[in-house]
């Protein structure tokens, strides 16, 4: 690339010298023009000759050579050199731009680990991650990339997940934590047992996904490839007709004038600007999105995401955390601590999410010696003797069965009522928590012109409506079985306009059929969930629903850039073609329509890569 830069500079200097020297000495001037032409364009002409021998007539090298040499023959020396000079500038710029975006993708690919330290006896052996097997013990030192997915068996540390999630806050890990390949170990030394082969590890999956994303082409890309296929031959044929027919038919028309017009056509005939800038825009959009933890599986998905009209959410795990927590402790006659302690003890033998949330809220260690006679009553609750007192904890049905009067109220979530020696002592409310940015997500979606937001849930109507109201969701369908969700989705698909798209957002667990049925399936919290990565078209690596709005904005921006480039490049080219045919535009304008448009389109495409402020 440096070599061609020097050639352009030197050729350019000679070219300028040729223009400014005294034009009395035409032979010297011509010699200078020819010299600069040879310096700048000889390789293009060589390639043209090589390709024409292979029978490729519409090769751009050939077209540029004909246009420039033709200009010499009709006596327009400066134009002849300029065509070649600026064509080369355009090529140089193009290859610079392409290299730059290839590099930015390569830096994304930088998450690929080079080696794993495998523990063999007391020794650490540097091994290719491909050769490490499930069950091997690996050691990750500070600053190293985690090479394979695994589980920590010794040590603790903080890890940087930003390469996968775009999340800058480091994550704490300790013995028992799951390790995801592609993250970077920041400080401590950790020993881990490998749980997945390299090919199945998170890092391989993500690399695969990003690298293959642009092979699924968007409509705009397909349009451009088709356009380019017909555009060049048509323009070249018109150029030929223009050069030959009018001088023969129209009285007083000269060959040199019409050949000049035809040559301008040849300069504009290259479809480079379009062919390069459209995929570059989508590539930029996909690359930019993956930097903030949004993986888009194809340009086609990025393109149609901009036409989203309806966004359908699954509730649990998507808008809510999917983790049950004690929300309210409401004692009656005893203290809050006592009520929580009694309930935690009574439920301590169960592994039900409700019992686990009670234990988490209680925080202290359960002393099993204090509990005797635990009896679970399925569908009702538990009956246990704690410190000699008879404790019952369970739902309303249990209280009614034992004929204990309890507090009634509009409580949303799971309520555990508790009685000691048949006397009511209060209740504890346990519920799933709404994610912090869920309300923001809905607000931002509405701001990006989404017509309808819908929530589907298997949960009760009470819970469903409360969550929807809190978040500002338009419609709720509650108490749905997994199969009902597909049915509801199909109903919703009928409600959108023909061009509009429906997006379904789920956590990838149990909702694969729905993800597949929607126009675009988005899976949340993809980090570590293979099911989600497989089933969805777009994967959001973090747990933040607000990233959906970000993804839509990235899509809208990318599409706008692609459309600007298509309209801008085609209209300038057609305008210059018409003007040259009428003899109103010079070859300089044609050079601008070719090189200038390419450069502007590429610069515009570069904007797609920048998604920081979206």
């Amino acid at each position, binding site marked *: 690339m440096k070599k061609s830069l020097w050639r352009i500079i030197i050729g350019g200097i000679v070219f300028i010298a040729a223009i400014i020297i005294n034009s009395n000495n035409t032979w010297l001037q011509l010699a200078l023009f020819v010299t600069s032409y040879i310096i700048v364009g000889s390789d293009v002409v060589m390639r043209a000759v090589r390709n024409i021998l292979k029978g490729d007539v519409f090769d*751009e090298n050939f077209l540029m050579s004909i246009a420039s040499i033709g200009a010499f023959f009709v006596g327009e020396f400066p134009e002849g050199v300029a065509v070649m000079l600026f064509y080369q500038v355009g090529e140089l710029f193009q290859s610079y731009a*392409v290299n730059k975006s*290839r590099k930015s*993708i390569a830096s994304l690919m930088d998450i690929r680990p080079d080696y794993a330290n495998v523990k063999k006896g007391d020794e650490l052996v540097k091994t290719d991650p491909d050769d490490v097997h499930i069950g091997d013990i690996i050691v990750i030192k500070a600053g190293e990339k985690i090479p394979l997915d695994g589980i920590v068996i010794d040590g603790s540390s903080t890890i940087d997940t930003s390469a996968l999630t775009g999340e800058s806050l480091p994550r704490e890990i300790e013995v028992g934590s799951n390790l995801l390949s592609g993250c970077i170990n920041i400080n401590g030394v950790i020993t881990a047992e490998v749980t997945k082969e390299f090919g199945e590890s998170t890092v391989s999956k993500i690399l695969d996904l990003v*690298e*293959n994303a*642009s092979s699924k082409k968007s409509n705009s890309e397909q349009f451009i*490839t088709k356009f*380019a296929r017909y555009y060049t031959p048509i323009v070249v044929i018109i150029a030929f007709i223009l050069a030959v027919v009018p001088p023969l038919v129209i009285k007083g028309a000269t060959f040199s004038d019409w050949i000049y017009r035809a040559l301008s056509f040849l300069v504009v005939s290259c479809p480079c600007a379009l062919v390069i800038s459209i995929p570059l825009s989508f*590539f930029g959009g996909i690359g930019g999105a993956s930097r903030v933890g949004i993986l888009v599986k194809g340009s086609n998905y990025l393109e149609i995401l901009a036409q989203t009209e309806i966004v359908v959410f699954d509730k649990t795990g998507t808008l809510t955390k999917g983790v049950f927590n004690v929300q309210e402790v409401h004692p009656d006659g005893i203290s809050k601590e006592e009520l929580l302690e009694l309930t935690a003890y009574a439920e301590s033998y169960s592994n039900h999410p409700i019992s686990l949330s009670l234990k988490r809220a209680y925080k202290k260690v359960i002393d099993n010696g204090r509990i005797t006679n635990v009896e679970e009553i399925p569908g009702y609750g538990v009956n246990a003797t704690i410190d000699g007192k008879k404790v019952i904890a369970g739902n309303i049905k249990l209280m009614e069965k034992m004929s204990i009067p309890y507090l009634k109220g509009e409580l949303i979530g799971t309520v555990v009522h508790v009685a000691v020696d048949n006397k009511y002592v209060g209740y504890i409310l346990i519920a799933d928590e709404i994610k912090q940015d869920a309300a923001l997500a809905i607000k931002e979606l509405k701001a990006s012109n989404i017509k309808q937001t819908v929530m589907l849930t298997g949960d009760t109507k009470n819970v469903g409506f409360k969550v929807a109201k809190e978040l500002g969701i338009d419609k709720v369908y509650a108490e749905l079985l997994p199969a009902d969700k597909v049915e509801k989705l199909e109903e919703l698909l009928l409600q959108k306009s023909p061009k509009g798209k429906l997006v379904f957002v789920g956590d990838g667990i149990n909702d694969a059929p729905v993800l597949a049925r929607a126009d675009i399936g988005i899976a949340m919290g993809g980090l570590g969930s293979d099911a989600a990565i497989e089933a969805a078209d777009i994967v959001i690596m973090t747990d933040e629903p607000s990233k959906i709005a970000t993804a839509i904005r990235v899509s809208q921006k990318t599409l706008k850039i692609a459309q600007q480039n298509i309209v801008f490049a085609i209209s300038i080219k057609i305008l210059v073609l018409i003007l040259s045919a009428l003899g109103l535009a010079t070859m300089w304008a044609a050079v601008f329509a070719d090189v200038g448009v390419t450069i502007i389109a590429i610069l515009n495409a570069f904007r797609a890569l920048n998604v920081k402020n979206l």
Partner: protein
Amino acid sequence: MKKTFRLEGLGCANCASKMERAINELDGVQNATVNFMTTKMVIEGEDEKMPVIVEAAEKIVKKIEPDVVIKKA
């Protein structure tokens, strides 16, 4: 069977789409993509015809862009 190659020095987007089109027309090819941005060529084809396909694909690449170096990825 699916084979991936890296096309080093792939310089023009239009050429990449020309290659892609020509390779897709080869006998036994199910799907071929030449990705200009990642410089990757992926060919999916019938197992027994694969050696012939790969050879033909290499010729196509060389014909359209003689400076490209084809490497196994």
